[in-house]
């Protein structure tokens, strides 16, 4: 297990270095010379060279990259060209919003998806299965930002059950905070719930037809016990896999959801930065999201090996 963990962490570290190189090169290939832009149009070549030296732009690329990496690890991500604020600070205020939203959405998706999937398995060939299949198919085919608009129209504007927008800090006021996040989280969780429903159903059907479940039944184990001991355990593996695979979708979806419900999260920061061509912020946001992506992926891999030991030991079940 230790060896496996070490290998995975090593791989994640290599991935991060590769990603940081891509981002570093990407930002430097952006149109426009920052030194020229800072110096203004009437600057003398000497002045431009001076600025370039100040910014470290005359150093070799490798040195520049290492400086960049050192700054990243010391938490210095530069300053926003739009607001002049420290980028680290901007991310620190927006990241929690996105994390709360995503975690809430994930919880909604897992609960709804597993419940619907199990329901479909329990009532094979009958109404609940058909209903769950239709819901899953529609959930996959519907763009979630459109669903968000419809939800605002119906649940916020017409019925007034939920606020159409706004954010309350979850830590300082958990009840109101979660209430404000409910509609966005449900919307963000929809497509993930649909995927989880389909896979839970498939995996439950698969498990319930195995010999060991038949044996368990023959031994006289009660249905709920079989469900929890065998069915859910296998579904858990599927669940962790899906979450790993849908991570990117969740992050992309969070950006859109924040936009629809006017949440002050990382997504809003990203979009504002893109439209203002605020390169330090774009670079930082892309870096932070990539890092988060790598870390969560690592966590999924490790979790996966805990639930399913055959991965770790390399012994495959027949």
């Amino acid at each position, binding site marked *: 297990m230790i060896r496996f963990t070490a290998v995975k962490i090593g791989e994640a570290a290599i991935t991060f270095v590769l990603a940081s190189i891509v981002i570093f090169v990407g930002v430097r290939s952006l149109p426009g010379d920052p030194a020229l832009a800072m110096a203004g149009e009437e600057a003398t070549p000497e002045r431009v060279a001076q600025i370039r030296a100040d910014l470290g732009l005359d150093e070799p690329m490798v040195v520049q990259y290492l400086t960049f990496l050192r700054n990243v690890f010391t938490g210095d991500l530069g300053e926003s060209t739009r607001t002049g604020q420290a980028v680290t600070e901007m991310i620190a205020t927006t990241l929690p919003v996105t994390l709360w939203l995503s975690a809430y959405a994930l919880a909604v998706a897992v609960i709804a998806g597993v419940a619907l999937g199990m329901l479909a398995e329990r009532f094979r060939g009958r109404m609940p299965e058909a209903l769950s299949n239709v819901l899953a198919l529609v959930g996959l*085919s519907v763009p979630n*930002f459109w669903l968000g608009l419809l939800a605002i129209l119906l649940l916020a504007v017409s019925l007034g059950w939920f606020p159409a927008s706004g954010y309350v800090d979850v830590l300082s006021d958990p009840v109101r905070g979660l209430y404000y996040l409910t509609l966005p989280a449900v919307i963000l969780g929809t497509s993930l719930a649909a995927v989880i429903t389909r896979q839970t159903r498939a995996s439950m059907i698969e498990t319930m037809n*195995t010999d060991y479940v038949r044996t368990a039944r023959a031994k006289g184990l009660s249905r709920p016990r079989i469900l929890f001991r065998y069915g859910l355990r296998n579904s858990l593996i599927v669940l962790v896999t899906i979450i790993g695979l849908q991570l990117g979708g969740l992050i992309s979806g969070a950006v859109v959801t924040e936009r629809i419900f006017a949440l002050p999260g990382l997504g809003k920061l990203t979009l504002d930065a893109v439209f203002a061509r605020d390169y330090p912020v774009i670079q930082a946001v892309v870096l932070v999201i990539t890092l988060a992506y790598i870390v969560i992926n690592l966590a999924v891999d490790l979790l996966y090996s805990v639930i399913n030991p055959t991965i770790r030991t390399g012994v495959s079940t027949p």
Partner: protein
Amino acid sequence: MSTPLVTTESTEPVRAPRRGALASLVRTPLGLLGTVLLVLTAEVAVLAPWIAPHGFSETNFAYPFQVPGTIGYPLGTDDLGRDILSRLLYGVRASMQVGLLAVGLAVLVGTPLGLLAGYWRAWDRIISRLTDVALAFPFLILAVGFVAIAGASLTSAAMALGIAQIPTMVRVVRGETIRLKNADFVRAAVAMDASVPRILLTHILPNSVSAIIVQATVIMPTAVIGESMLSFLGLGIQPPSPSLGIMLSDAQQYIYRAPAAAVFPGLAILVICLAFNLFGDALRDALDPSSARGSSSRRRRTGGRRSTAVRQPADTSPDPAARTVSDAGSAHDTDGEPR
């Protein structure tokens, strides 16, 4: 069914699709619905310039916010008095354009990489490692990068969406290649000293085509939703060009005044995606007689129970690298990749 059914218990790894597979596409109600919707969508996309009653940016400031059902404007008009139906038809066209570009990119880049990874173990190490990492990378971040460098446009959006889908295509082709590599006819070709390009291009690739097409039907709806998302955010197609995402973004601004305008573009996206998801499901069942998910006709014959022997569930393959691409942002399960 006139053709003999291939028994699902067969252990023969490589099977030809049933004859008449394409006809069986339309035999199930859902398959038929998917095919009809797909044909309809394709027609709208191709014929939009001829069937749209107005131009997509033809403004009529005298008639803004007309309700659906207005004479001359069946779905009403938007804030600038533009015909919503016409914009919708052109929007479907744009969605399909981006979708096809993205699919094309994923196929063109993903197929060779998948063939390499499947055929040579050494390549597999590198390529599979990279695809594992990239598999779930958020396409929106890619798009942000593209927009920052090249500016927002239909092409940028299609590039970002296509690149994001390359890993799934690599996985599918790699799985097919590994499966076919051990088939008798490929072994025979190897024994006859056929060159590697020849084996890959004339034996393995043609037999992987159906898997590639099925995967394309998976990528298409993902790309269509992705395009509308990017355009909605202002990172995709730029106004005044029509896009379903832009229409929704416009509609959101006036959602209190003209709520109906927010309904139709979303419905159009839903229909396109349903079409591809249903068609893709039916196509997979039709092309792959051993598909673990029984077609409804087979289910009926076996009394609602699947006759397939218990298979290793696709998602429990004993290696995180083999985590299936199933549902990587879309609707379909792929069968477990034999290793």
